[in-house]
């Protein structure tokens, strides 16, 4: 229903773009916004049917636009952001949605691949915040992210083509995530 969507949209927008929202937490500043876009309607004109931009916003029909302004930069459309900036913006939005309707677990598969270490640290601290109320399962090759986990499972294919699980401590993982032979005993 319209009211329900309106409420949820406001909540997500606050969790994403608010002063203490996910965007500012992950970027260490800057500003973001999600907007409902005015509807485009098909209108009969003397040249046939044309698409016309109206200024009407409909909670049940309008598309959603995302505006992201990393600290110190002019507001950009999503396309002009860098690879790492796009990843961070997407993570901020997904965690804002998660925050407005938490589920008991969340899985992140190599989400930190494009991030530099300063951003990985902020990503990890945000994940740690959330983990107080839900389980987070984080797949990663990044040493810093591994350090942020409470428990580590290593997956090996000592027998080619067959995956085995080993419990590992942080110091038993090599810099790339492969498991030191000492842990496989």
């Amino acid at each position, binding site marked *: 229903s319209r009211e*329900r969507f309106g409420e949820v949209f406001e909540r997500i927008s606050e969790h994403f773009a608010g002063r203490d929202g996910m965007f500012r937490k992950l970027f260490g500043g800057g500003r973001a916004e999600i907007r409902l876009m005015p509807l485009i309607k098909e209108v009969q004109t003397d040249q046939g049917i044309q698409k016309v931009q109206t200024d009407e916003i409909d909670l049940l029909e*309008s598309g*959603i636009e995302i505006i992201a302004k990393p600290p110190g930069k002019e507001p950009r459309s999503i396309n002009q952001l860098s690879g790492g900036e796009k990843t961070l913006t997407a993570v901020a939005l997904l965690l804002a949605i*998660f925050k407005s309707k938490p589920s008991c677990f969340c899985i992140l598969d190599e989400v930190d691949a494009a991030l530099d270490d300063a951003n990985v640290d902020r990503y990890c601290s945000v994940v740690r915040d959330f983990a107080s109320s839900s389980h987070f399962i984080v797949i990663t090759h990044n040493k810093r992210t*591994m350090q942020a986990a*409470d428990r*580590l499972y290593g997956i090996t294919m000592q027998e080619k083509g067959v*995956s085995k*699980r080993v419990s590992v401590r942080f110091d038993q993982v090599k810099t790339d*995530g492969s498991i030191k032979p000492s842990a496989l005993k």
Partner: protein
Amino acid sequence: MRLSKLTLSGFKSFADRTQFTFDQSVTGIVGPNGCGKSNIVDAIKWVLGERSSKSLRGKEMIDVIFAGSAGRKPLGLASVTLTFDNPIIAQDASDSHHDKTSGHALENGVTWATTKRRTLPIDAEEVDVERKLFRDGTSHYLINNKRVRLRDIRELFLDTGVGADAYSIIEQGKVDAMLLSNPQERRTIFEEAA
């Protein structure tokens, strides 16, 4: 409600029965390229009712059954079980929705306070959700070892945010997908949370 265990057997590269316990807040999964990390994510999507083999990176659904390796023959069955803790939570008088699921007919106001309530509408401390697939194509869903339909699994997790294509699972390489989709498609993610 908490996620407590995941058990795979014969699913993709996990030929042998393998169990993951989730008793800590943040669980990290590490290992070299191609060792089977993303197969774990596929297993969770599959047991929660994923029906597209393409989104499990296969051509047909039987591609999820262990297909053999240099030293092993292919298996005939893939099975994945997801276990949730489902403790009794305090029942407050204002929440009338759940009483319908735990089956207590409301005779008069007095029974409110004593009804036991759990997040998942099943009266058990632990809930096992299992999916099996045999090489001949036969497929079963089970809740606490009782066969059910996919619809029952969907109803079980209604409004909990748990599901095969929920916003709570970000697959490898797909983190940007939400940003790159068009403004209309973005609505669906928002609507899921409504």
